[in-house]
C-alpha cells in the first residue's frame, strides 16, 4: 500500500495507477502525486496531536488540488461536528479513525488507501468506521482500497484481491456484496 500511495519505492516491478506508471516517479513528483490523487487512512490514525479534529481535516483541504469537500458539510455528514474542537487524545479510537478518514477524503482524492483501518478498534467501533467508509463511497464516489487481515470485511468490497507472502494469489469480483450491518466482525 505504501508503494501504491507513493510513500515507498519499488525494488522491482512496476505500479500503474489510473493508467499512469508511477514507479519511475522522482521524489518531487511523488509528492505531487500524493497531494493530488491519494488519501490515506492508517491503522493507528496518525492524527497530528496539537491540532483539533477539525484542524486535522483542514490539513488536507489546505493543499487540495481537486475541489475540496466543504469541511463543515463533511463533518456534519460524518457526525464529527460534536467533537470537532477536541484534540486526538480526547477522542475514542473510533472517533479518531473517523477524523482520519474525513481528513483523507476532504481533499477529494481519486484513491483512498486504508491500511488495517479497523485493526486497532473493538468490533462496535470497527462497524461504525466501516459504515462510515461505505457512506463515503456512496456520497463521494471515491475509489477505496482496503487492506485487511480481517476476512469478514471482504463482504462490503466490490473486488477482492488476496495476497500471500507478497504475491497475488487470487482476484475476484464480489457478487455477494453485503451491507456493514450484515458483517460478522
Amino acid at each position, binding site marked *: 500500500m*505504501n508503494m501504491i*500511495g507513493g*510513500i*515507498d519505492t519499488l525494488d522491482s516491478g512496476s505500479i500503474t495507477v489510473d493508467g499512469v506508471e508511477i514507479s519511475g516517479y522522482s521524489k518531487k513528483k511523488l*509528492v*505531487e502525486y*500524493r*497531494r*493530488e490523487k*491519494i488519501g*490515506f487512512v*492508517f491503522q*493507528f*490514525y*496518525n*492524527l*497530528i*496531536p*496539537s*491540532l*483539533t479534529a477539525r*484542524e486535522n481535516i*483542514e*490539513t*488536507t483541504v*489546505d*493543499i487540495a488540488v481537486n475541489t475540496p469537500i466543504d469541511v463543515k458539510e463533511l463533518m456534519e455528514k460524518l457526525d464529527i461536528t460534536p467533537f470537532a*474542537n*477536541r*484534540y*486526538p*487524545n*480526547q477522542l475514542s479510537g473510533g472517533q*479518531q479513525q473517523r477524523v482520519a478518514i474525513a*481528513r483523507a477524503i476532504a481533499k477529494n482524492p481519486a484513491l483512498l488507501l486504508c491500511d488495517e483501518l479497523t485493526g486497532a478498534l473493538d468490533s462496535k467501533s470497527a462497524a461504525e468506521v466501516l459504515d462510515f467508509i461505505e457512506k463515503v463511497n456512496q456520497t463521494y464516489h471515491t475509489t477505496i482500497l482496503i487492506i485487511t487481515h480481517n476476512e469478514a470485511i471482504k463482504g462490503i468490497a466490490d473486488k477482492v484481491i488476496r495476497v500471500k507472502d507478497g504475491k497475488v494469489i487470487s482476484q475476484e469480483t464480489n457478487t455477494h456484496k453485503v451491507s456493514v450491518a450484515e458483517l460478522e466482525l
Partner: protein
Amino acid sequence: MKAINHTFKKDLRSNISFYAAIGLLTMFAVFLSAVGFSDAAMIKDDIHKIMTEQHVEDAQFLTALEMTDEDISALEEKYDARIEQDAYLDYEEGEKSWRIFRGMDKVNVYTLLEGDDITGDNEILFDRDFADSNSLETGSTYVLDGHEFLIKGIGVRPDYLYSKKNDSDPWVDKENFGMILMTASGYDKLRESCQWQETRYYSVEYGDEERSEDFRRDIYENFHAYSYISDQSNSRINTPATSGDKIFSEAIVLIPVMAIVILILVAIVIGRMLEREQKYIGTLAALGYRRGEIGRHYMIYAIIPGIIGSVLGMALALIAGRDLAMYFVIDFQKLNYNYYIHPLIAVLCMVVPSLLFGLVAYRKTMKIFRRNVVSMLAERDDRTGRKHGMLEKSSMSFRRKFRIRELFSHPGRTVLILFCLLLSAFMCLEGFAMKDMVNDLVDKGAEKAAVYEYSYYLNHMELESDLGGVHGISTSYETPDNGASIGVMGVPEDSRFGGLEMKEGSFGSGFYISNAVSVERGLHKGDSIEVANPVTLEKYELEIFGVVADNTQQMIYTTYDEARKLMGLDEAYYNVVYSDEELPISGEDLAYVSDSKSMLDTFESAMSALSGFINGVMFMGVLMSVVSVYLVVNMIVESNKSSISMLKVLGYRDREINGIVLNTNHVLVILGFLLALPMCIALLRGVSAVMVSRMHVVLEPSFSPVSALICAAIIIISYFVSLFLLRRKVSRIDMVVSLKGNRE
C-alpha cells in the same frame, strides 16, 4: 547494563548534531571560564612580579638642588628607601621618536625578555612593541643620527610597561615611539657625543610607604623639590599595575553568568532528548531493569558530551588562552607571560559540566518514571491534551494555530529560545553600541581636546622670551582622597578657549572641571574639589563654576591669571603655547607638542585595539544566536517528527512543512531584539561608568539607528542560517516515521 550501554554508539551517530551542538556550547563555557580566570591571574601575577623584582618606582621627583651620592645614601637609610637618579635621552626623526634610557641599578631596573644582555657601550636592547612594529631583529645594526648600535635583544623597564611617550598622552604609539636600553657607561658616552635632549629625575622605591609623606617634606625643605609624581599619578605604572585586578573583577561577574546560561541551555536540551527516549525507557522498565540502573545509564549518556566539551574547551584554553590574554594587555609591553590554568579551575571546568548534565539526565529519567510503563511504551504524555488547549474555536488557519500552540504549549522552551535570542541580540547590539561610543569619543573627543591646531608644552616656565602664539599654564595636582593626578590648565583670556563648549555654566573667571572629572567624581557646578600641590603637599579647596564638555581629560580649566594665582606666580610665566600655525619651538625648550591630527591618529589607533574586543563580543553574539536557535528549533523538529512525517504523507512539500514547523519562532526574534534594546542602553550607561573609573575618559552612551539596523540584520541572518541548517533535518525525516511510531 552492559547490553543497554551498547546503544551509545548508535545514539552518537543518530544524534550527532545534538552532541556536536552540546559539545560546542560546553567547550565554549569551559574555555571562557578557564581562560578568563587564568588570564586575569597570569596578568596580575606576572606584572606584579616584574614590578616587584625590578623595583618599580613609587614616585619620581625633581629637585632644584642636586642630590649627591651621600645625600641619597642618607635618605635611603633614613626612610628605608631605594633612590637613584634616572636619565634618558630623547631623539626625534620625522614621525618617529626614540627614548634612550640609562641602565639603572636600584630602581626601575630593566628585564631582559629576549636575546643577550648588554655589556658593551654600543650595545642596546629595544622594547618589544617597537621592535615588532618595525621588524627589528636581534644581532642587526641600528643607526640613529649617525650613531651605530648593535641590537642584542629585547628588554623592558618596569615603569614603562604602558609605554606612553608622555604621561599625558591618551594612549601608546607602538610604531613610532621606541625605547632603547643601554649600559650606564654606554649611555654616558653617547650623551657626550650627541646633542639630544636629556631628562633627569630621581626615582624612589619606599620600603615603608607610610613614611613617604615625611620623605616628601624632607626633599622639599632640604633639596627644594619642585616636582613629585607618585605611581598613583603615573599612568605608565598605575594602569598595568591594576589591570589584573580589573580583569579579574570583570571575569568574576561576567564569566559565571555566561557559563551558567550555557550550561542551563545544555541541561534543558538533554532533558528534551531524554523525553524522546521514553519508549526505550519504558521497554527497559518492562524488561525488569531497575530505575537506578536506567537512571545511571542515561547519566552516562549525558555525561559524554560534557566530557567531550570539557576536554575540548580545556585543550583550547591551553592552546589559545595565552594569546587571548594578549588582547587584555594589548596596550602594554608584551612580557614573557607564564600562562597556566589553576588546578582548581581546571578541576571545576572538567567536573562541573559533566556532573550537571549527568544529574539533569538522572532527574529527568526519574521524572519520566512518574508515567506508567504503558504510557511510556506508547510515547504518550497524558498531559499533552491540556497543554495544547487554545484557539480551538478560532477561524484562524491551522498553520498559524499550530505555530501559536507550539509557542504557548511549551513555555519553558519558548522562554529559553527568547532568552537565547535576547542574549544574542544584546551581545550584538552591545558590540555595535560600544563601537558607536568609541567612534563618538574619537570624533568629538579629539576635536574638543584640540582647541588650537598646535599645543606646545614647554619643559620649563618661560618668562622672558615670547615664543609666539597665545600663552597658558599647564600643571599637575593631586587629589588627596586617592592620590590621583589631575591637570590644571590656565588658558589665556580673550582666546578661543572662551568659547569652550560647556555642559554646565559658562566659561569666565573661576575653576571649571572637565566632564570626565564631573562624571568620575560626581561633581557639578556649585560643588568644590580639593587638590594638593604634589611637591609642597599644600591643599586647596576650589569652587566649581561649571563643567566643560571635555570627555577625554581629567582636567581643571581656569583662566591664566587664576592659574598663576593658584601656583603663586607673580610674573607672567607660561609653559604652554597655543597656535593654529606651526611655530619654530623645538630643542631644549620643548617637552612635547600636541597637534589635532596626531591626537586624532592616537585616538584612532588606541580605539582600533578596542575594536578587536568589540568584534569578539559581536561574534560571540552571532555564534550564540546560531547555536541556540539551532538547538531549540532542533528540539521542535524532533518533538514534531511524526507530525512532519504525516504532513509529508499527506502531500505537503518540504517548503510548506518548513513554513509550519520551523517558522514558529519568528515573533521571538523580533521580541528578543526589542527587549534587548533597553537592556543594551542600560548596560551602555554601566560601561560608560566603568570606562570613567578605568580609563578616566567619558564614553557618552550613543547608538546610531544604522547600527541598530545592521545589528537586526545580523541577528535575523544568523537566525535564518540556523533554520536553513535545520531544513536538511526536516527533509531527511522519513514518511515511515509516522507509520511506525504514531499511536495517538
